[in-house]
């Protein structure tokens, strides 16, 4: 009879779905960062247009 391959057991307790979600950043944060960058760029353009920088 063929030998059964040994099972593998990892260390420690696994994280649940909600615990894992708490450890990642939502993609909406990416959208917020992009919006902030766009706002900064718009502000820079205004300042440049006014020759203040």
């Amino acid at each position: 009879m063929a030998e059964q391959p040994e099972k593998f057991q990892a260390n420690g307790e696994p994280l649940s779905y909600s615990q894992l979600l708490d450890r990642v950043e939502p993609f909406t944060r990416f959208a917020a960062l992009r919006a902030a960058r766009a706002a900064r760029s718009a502000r820079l353009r205004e300042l440049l247009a006014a020759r203040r920088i």
Partner: protein
Amino acid sequence: MAMGFDYRDGVYRDLATGEDVSQEEIQRLLNQEWRAMESVIAGHFAALLAGGSVASFQTAMARDLRDSMLRAGALAAGGTAQLSPRDLATAEALANRAVRSLATLGRQLASGKLTQAQAATKAANLALYTRQGFHRGQLLQRTEAGVLEARRTLAGGARHCLSCPAYETRDWVPVDDVVAIGDACECGGRCLCIVTYRKPQLPNQNLIEAVTERQLAIEN
């Protein structure tokens, strides 16, 4: 190379030269992202085998997998600048499914029900979410941009699972009738099926008939 997707003509463009970027090049970039994710997963799995905790493995996997899915979504949209909030919400929904799969895998790893080979395969398969993120994102974005026709074709050399032939469309069909690659099939997007998109070419009797039939079905 910085590029974007030109929704007017339905092609990817190199933003520096204005030249078209071929579908083959987009597929190459997607495959590159997918293979890179497989390699990252192999690294995390090696750390687990070396005695790392299952929680650390899950956390590192969740972060890297989501990053990869975001990059694939951006590739589908034609760059990060073309990722709309709706695209991000769609990517988030799929990324949450990936995290759910990771939670399940974590339980299996901790309970000792899998062999090492089984565990390695299950972990590597999570990289397929990258491909699904690309295909699902592309379908949504093209639909929103008014690219209303699509065609799904099988790759040559039968490089697909048993489900794929049923999803092939022999002609251009309304985009809603195309099943995104990786959805509801055994290969999960590992196949090399191709979906191409176009704006309706008028007159297109097939499309008009399909829309009319659908409208009649709704009215009845």
